[in-house]
């Protein structure tokens, strides 16, 4: 019973609460943060657009493409391999009439 009263008093403890305020010069700190976030974004853009970084990125992309193309051209796909194999098998099985006569005179 006593505890119920205590809980009720705790639940009502925010009655009449006043709004808290941030410290002095809050706007100045927000402005600083805004400038920081802008200079960070500008820094990233400046880094990406550096000629050396841009050229290196383009070279890497070209190399990846060349590697991918060469890899595709050199290696036949599994389907192509099985097609070649079945053509070979067919040509071995496709005996001429003379061959048949030779087997069964």
């Amino acid at each position: 019973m006593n505890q119920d009263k205590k809980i009720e008093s705790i639940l009502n403890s925010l009655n009449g609460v006043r709004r808290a305020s941030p410290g002095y010069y809050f706007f100045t700190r927000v402005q600083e943060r805004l400038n920081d976030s802008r200079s960070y974004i500008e820094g990233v853009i400046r880094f990406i657009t550096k000629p050396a970084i841009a050229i290196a990125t383009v070279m890497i992309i070209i190399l990846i493409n060349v590697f991918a193309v060469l890899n595709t051209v050199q290696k036949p796909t599994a389907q192509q391999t099985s097609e070649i194999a079945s053509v070979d098998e067919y040509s071995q099985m496709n005996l001429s009439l003379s061959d048949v006569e030779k087997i069964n005179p």
Partner: protein
Amino acid sequence: MEEIELVRLLQNGDRAAFKTLVTRWQDMVYNTALGLMQNESDAEDVAQEVFVKVFEAVNSFKGESKLSTWLYQITIRKSLDALRKKKRKKRFSFIYSLYNENDELIHDPPDFVHPGVMAENKEDAEWLFKAVKRLPENQKTAFILNKMETLSYNEVGEIMNLSTNAVDALLQRAKKNLKKYLSDLLKEQ
């Protein structure tokens, strides 16, 4: 200055309008963040982030809701994100030292007392904030908006995109949970 005019100026990157925005709503943003974060420096950090975000994203504000509603939504999102990040850090805190140079726990600050609570209620409010910490995110948000920002169910619903009935149900559940947590906390004492 009218809200529409303020938004128009902000969308043009007007710094004076930005100062008006910060001055007008800094207490609202900070107080909401403080209720959710229960730490003054974290709340200040979130409040700064909120205004930076508003300045950067004001062009996406369509004016379908009040500016204060939009500010509340950003504050809640940022506060909950910061809390989750803090929780993750705490989970991995065993990897590095748990104590600072004064042998105080880094991740378990002393019990929070809201500076706006009346002097005679401070002790009880301390218990309440301990229990609020344990509430699920949506119940905690509704409770803080209703009790600390003294918003009506309708206003809380607008901010949380819920109907008035849903807010009512959410606050009932919050109160029920708080009673349970408080009972446990008082027994542990």
